[in-house]
């Protein structure tokens, strides 16, 4: 499809406008989009992202029937209302105390991922470390299966079996 403005380049931006019930479509190229000042806002600052995510939180909680809304963390006294206001948590324990609410936020902020995969402290007790390695291997396995890399998947499966023994 050619750009409706310059009639030269391929149209890569497709706009649909509905005004007073009338639908109009526009197909233009990137260059003309810039000239017409029709640019896609591409950068959302972290704090804006965070407040957007938090804004949708209550409905999620209603669905899960969470009682975390009125809870205060036993170790630091922190509440979800304070988190909404400040954007930061009160103590490491909050990750467990407010797990239900935080989980969907964490999922959205990290591309759907909810489990750590990466460095483990040198001093982590061995069984926790083993658990972590297993968790990481399983995540890699999932990715290998998704990308249809069955050779790697078989290798990972063997490793997981070995680790489980």
């Amino acid at each position, binding site marked *: 499809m050619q750009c409706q403005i310059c009639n030269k380049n391929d149209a890569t931006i497709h706009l649909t406008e509905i005004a007073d019930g009338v639908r109009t479509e526009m197909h233009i190229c990137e260059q003309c989009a810039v000239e017409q000042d029709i640019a896609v806002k591409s950068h959302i600052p972290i704090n804006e992202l965070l407040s957007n995510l938090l804004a949708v939180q209550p409905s999620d909680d209603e669905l899960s029937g969470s009682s975390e809304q009125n809870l205060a963390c036993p170790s630091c006294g922190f509440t979800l209302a304070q988190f909404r206001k400040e954007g930061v948590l009160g103590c490491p324990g909050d990750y*467990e105390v407010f797990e239900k609410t935080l989980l969907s936020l964490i999922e959205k902020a990290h*591309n*759907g991922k909810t489990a*750590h995969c990466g460095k483990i402290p040198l001093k982590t007790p061995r069984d926790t470390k083993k658990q972590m390695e297993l968790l990481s291997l399983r995540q890699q396995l999932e990715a290998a299966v998704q990308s249809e890399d069955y050779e790697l998947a078989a290798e990972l499966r063997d490793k997981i079996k070995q680790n489980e023994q």
Partner: protein
Amino acid sequence: MKLTDISNDINEWFDGSGPLADIVISSRIRLARNLAGYKFLSRCSDTEKSEILDKLRDIMMSLDLGDKVFYVSVDQAPTLNKHFLVERHLISRHHAFGKGPRGVVIAEHEFFTAMINEEDHLRIQVLKAGCQISQCAQQINRIDDMIEKKVDFAFNPRYGYLTACPTNVGTGIRVSVMLHLPALKITGQIEKFFNAAKDMNLAVRGLFGEGTEAASDLYQLSNQATLGVSESDIVSRFEKTIIPEIIEYENAARSQLLSKQSDVLDDKISRAMALLQNARLISSQEALFLLSHLRLGINMHQRMGASTPAIEKLRTLCGAGDDPNKASVLSIALQLNYGKPLDPTHRDALRAQIIRSALNQDDPQKS
């Protein structure tokens, strides 16, 4: 060690050298960590913050980094010094103008800094010139291991390293590269870069981090997700996919300029040189804008009679300052070196004089 010792020169990681330096100016990796057994800073009293600060400062000062380190007590530093530390990318604005006991440990060659009591108890960062992300990763991992031998960090098997803001949880890693993309800007294709960054789930910021405008065609590109993806995967994605793609875009725009708009390019570069060599008063914004074009000229192998390190030195010394709203009036390095705050006209005159003498070395009469 005083701040004026480093304000007179430019830091090693920002001197225009290093791999792929015509587009990738610098590489930076930051790790966020919190001490186990302490609350996050929003719930700490000043006494607890002082305890954390003392503990971490002593550890950071005792590390074997292969370079001397010095400590700046940020809460007690004069305002001019705080601005300088931000302008020099050694601390964040949040750290400079935050509350309560806090400080920063800086390696003399500025490749390493450790902010204590910023948003998290500890934020360490390693910086290098050009595209050296895996080198940054190796070095910061080694430093992190050294620190971990002396303290326990808050860590949970499911969520990894626990951070005050859930957007940093997991690895706590932020990989950033500073990119010079003048040709994409001149050819009106910078949106292409923004869209590519968005598709790859990366954040784009200006020269001085979150909330600052892109000055002098410099953009910081960094990862957003820190959970569910390992440090090495993030690093290799930057090196193998992201950076090559952006470099390809910028180089295509540069070739396009050369083949279709060489007059426009020559004009922009020659004008930049002429103005910088002759101006008697120059604002920091104008200086940054013109220096960006001059850097492009040098990188496109035009004989400009100046080198990239010289441009970088001028940019650092005469730069915009850290506050986008006051970009035209601030340049802290300039004032720190002069020994006292200057009014805007004097600043513009001093800036113009420094640039003239650097760019007219063959013809001292002009400067």
